[in-house]
């Protein structure tokens, strides 16, 4: 109880200070607009409230990665993008070299990842298949820190990452791009955009591949992983927006994703996703908007048995979702949003008893009210009820966020609730691991719940942007697996259980600057205190306490037809100490310390007649190589060269 009171006190103090601070002297509205434009504060975001709002106005702390940022960062994939841009993000390996995300103390199971606002079916070790998130057709990424279940339901206990797709912005756009790097890494893609009368269509295709390579060369070294297994992916998407009349927009989309991973050369594992959706938006009048949508997402896993040529599916998660939302805008831009969702969730997995499948329906209703109290204050509150047919479980979550703004200073803070309902896998799993041990589901699992309090302030002056914030999360009933148990069955087993209350505390600070002569820089620091759960058989690596990201850029227009962008980026992650499983029977823990590291990247992009874009980058320029390849060691063997070419044909 002490922490919420403390946060309330800090909010009161900051408000008092802000109210007493003078209006920005010496600034015209035009100058303020210019500052806001430089730091993208007028960009429209949607994730924090499910309604479009300018970044500077949204009461929910939101980190925006714009299309311009995406071009400048030129990230290889979503992992690369988030690690370069967000301090405190770490991607580590888990069992079977599957990827686990840790975002400031919340693992992949606590961060809800959306693509155009839609959930993604399928998971592996509670994480999304990050390879699905192809940056080829993405225009911006919005990141919400803290719980958001009052708007998005299950899984948003620690945050939301929403990737927003591009729309065609001219009658005909055709881009082809390619990139090559070490280990035969290759990525190629193309985008075709058409904007014609009432139709806007964007089609994308991309392909990537990388060979298997060995990182832990000395066979006597204790490495959590020795090889990085190669894979190839295909991603195809199309999104059609049809506007029959000015106030109606119908969006149809379809996508296909394929990945083949060479974890076992003779039986590569395959991953496929089929997605489709239909969405209608009807602006009845300027005060009333109705949306309805249907989304289909099917994520399959199979094994190709090369000797027999058989492709045998052993996992399929199918989600069908229908949704409706109504927004009413009152005078003064106060906004009421109400919505309902109904989802059917179907799961077939090799981890169930053979031949068994499970499905459940989830239904929810939410209400959000966004109130402009006066010219400085805005409050947004929401409440949501979720129902899960399996176990007839109910969850009620709420949030309240406040935003205070003067010309140069903005403060955001509030409370948000989160929960993660146990999945069908976690409830009904009965998996025999090669006759060695079993993993048992637990039908009695309770939903994991979180209470998040946060407070962020930002100050923009001349060429500088400062932001500082803190968040506190209390998590109850976190779902995890136990240590090895010995019952009366044939094999020892692990089972799913709820663990006691955990806390995550985070502090962030960011400074950005944009000067004349095309110079820019940003420095971000993140502190995370993650109260670690007891060691289990999971390969879980908690968040590193200190993380620092830096980016420096120089853009120069040599002529009307030739521009260069030079950027230097680096990130530092401190060492982390925690307890890990040492003996399994009887269960014993041992202290583990993973060392700090820093990685730097230098990148030169050349833009010729704004049509040809050539990129050369050296990653890990200081040739860092981990002494031990632990699960959370960076996957690098030293400096590496990447070259890329992007051509805007039309």
């Amino acid at each position: 109880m002490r922490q919420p009171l403390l946060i309330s006190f800090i909010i009161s103090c900051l408000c008092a200070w802000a109210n007493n601070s003078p209006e920005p002297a010496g600034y015209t509205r035009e100058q303020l607009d210019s500052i806001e434009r430089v730091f993208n504060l007028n960009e429209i975001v949607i994730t924090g409230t499910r309604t479009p709002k300018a970044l500077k106005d949204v009461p929910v702390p939101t980190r925006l990665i714009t299309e311009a940022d995406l071009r400048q960062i030129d990230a290889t994939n979503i992992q690369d993008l988030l690690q370069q841009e967000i301090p405190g993000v770490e991607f580590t390996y888990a069992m079977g070299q599957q990827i686990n995300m840790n975002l400031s103390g919340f693992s992949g199971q606590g961060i809800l990842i959306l693509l155009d606002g839609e959930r993604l079916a399928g998971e592996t070790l509670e994480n999304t298949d990050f390879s699905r998130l192809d940056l080829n057709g993405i225009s911006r990424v919005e990141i919400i820190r803290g719980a958001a279940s009052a708007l998005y339901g299950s899984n948003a206990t620690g945050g939301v990452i929403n990737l927003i797709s591009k729309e065609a912005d001219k009658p005909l756009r055709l881009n082809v791009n390619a990139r090559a790097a070490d280990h035969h890494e290759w990525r190629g893609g193309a985008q075709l955009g058409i904007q014609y009368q009432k139709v806007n269509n964007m089609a994308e295709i991309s392909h990537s591949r990388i060979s298997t390579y060995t990182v832990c060369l000395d066979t006597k070294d204790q490495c959590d992983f020795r090889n990085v297994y190669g894979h190839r992916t295909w991603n195809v998407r199309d999104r059609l927006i049809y506007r029959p009349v000015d106030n109606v927009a119908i969006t149809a989309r379809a996508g296909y994703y394929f990945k083949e991973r060479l974890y076992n050369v003779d039986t590569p594992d395959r991953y496929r996703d089929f997605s489709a959706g239909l969405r209608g938006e009807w602006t009845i009048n300027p005060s009333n908007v109705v949306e309805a949508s249907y989304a289909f997402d099917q994520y399959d896993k199979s094994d190709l048995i090369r000797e027999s040529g058989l492709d045998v599916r052993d996992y399929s998660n199918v989600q069908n979702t229908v949704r409706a939302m109504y927004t009413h805008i009152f005078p003064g831009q106060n906004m009421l949003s109400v919505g309902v969702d109904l989802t059917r969730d179907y799961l077939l997995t090799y981890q169930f008893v053979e031949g068994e499948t499970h499905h459940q329906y989830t239904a929810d209703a939410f209400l959000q009210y966004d109130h402009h109290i006066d010219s400085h204050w805005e409050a947004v509150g929401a409440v949501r009820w979720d129902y899960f047919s399996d176990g007839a479980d109910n969850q009620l979550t709420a949030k309240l966020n406040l935003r205070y703004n003067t010309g140069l200073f903005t403060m955001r803070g509030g409370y948000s609730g989160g929960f993660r309902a146990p999945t069908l896998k976690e409830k009904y799993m009965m998996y025999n691991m090669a006759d060695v041990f079993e993993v048992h589901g637990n039908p009695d699992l309770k939903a994991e719940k979180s209470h998040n309090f946060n407070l962020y302030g930002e100050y923009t002056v001349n060429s500088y942007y400062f932001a500082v914030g803190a968040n506190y999360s209390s998590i109850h009933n976190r779902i995890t697996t136990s240590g090895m148990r010995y019952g009366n069955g044939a094999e020892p087993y692990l089972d799913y259980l709820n663990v006691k209350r955990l806390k995550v505390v985070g502090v962030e600070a960011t400074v950005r600057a944009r000067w004349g002569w095309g110079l820019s820089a940003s420095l971000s620091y993140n502190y995370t205190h993650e109260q670690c759960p007891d060691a289990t058989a999971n390969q879980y690596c908690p968040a590193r306490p200190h993380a620092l990201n830096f980016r420096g850029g120089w853009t120069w227009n040599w002529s009307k037809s030739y521009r260069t962008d030079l950027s230097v980026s680096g990130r530092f992650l401190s060492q982390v100490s925690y307890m890990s499983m040492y003996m399994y029977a009887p269960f014993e823990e041992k202290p583990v310390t993973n060392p700090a590291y820093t990685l730097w990247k230098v990148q030169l992009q050349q833009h010729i007649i704004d049509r040809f874009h050539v990129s050369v980058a050296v990653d890990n320029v200081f040739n860092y190589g981990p002494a031990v390849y632990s699960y959370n060691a960076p996957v690098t063997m030293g400096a590496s060269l990447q070259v890329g070419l992007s051509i805007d044909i039309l």
Partner: protein
Amino acid sequence: MTLNSLRIFLIMAIAGALSSCDGIFSDIYDPAPDDDAFEQGIITRSDSPGRYTLMLDARSYNEWHFIHLSDLSITTVAIPDSLSGEWDGRSGWSYHLVEGTKYTPLSSRKTDPQPEPDEWDFALHHFDVRTNGGAALATTYTAFSELPATSASFPADDFQSDVWTNNQVITDLEGMMAYHIGYQNSYANLVLSDWVTMDFSNPPPTYSATGKVYLMRLADGTVAAMLLRNYMSNAGTKGFLTIEIKYPY
């Protein structure tokens, strides 16, 4: 216009939702073969004298399968896990902390010696191989058709005999997640046992086969050529061995 559009939208949404509850495109996948269809035994190739195909369910980590080529017999014997009488001074299980190729002994337990049939030429345990007083070498060939006419082309000194091991024949993988592995103290032929590598450094294990033809010299001096054609079933279950044998070679 607006109502028509919404009507079409609703019809398409409902049709889509109803048609795809349990997924689509299931026919792009193959049905999973049944491991029970695997027929264990030694098949004599009628088209090629002296050619055999050994099919063996060697999934268990707690059994040795003894092969006698003269009568094409397979005898399966359980690995002892306890001591019932006087200890022979070496039989037992050894537990190691396995870090790459570094083995740190943790504990051990005594057991009875491994029972063996009266007559056998070689034995298989999962992917491990031992010989009955024989020796083996790995060729650079990947098919019998590439082999020289006789085994005399291979220097006798290149054949390696079995060695006594306590970190080769896995009997207990229960502690795999902590890299604590139990092994039978046993003879093993390290050349032949290398035909499949099981790497459990990042569980679940990964597997890779050399695909080479191996020569095994039996105790009586005769030589068999062996090629591990497959180490899994049609369903992909590891431990189902299909071994091509040319004997005598």
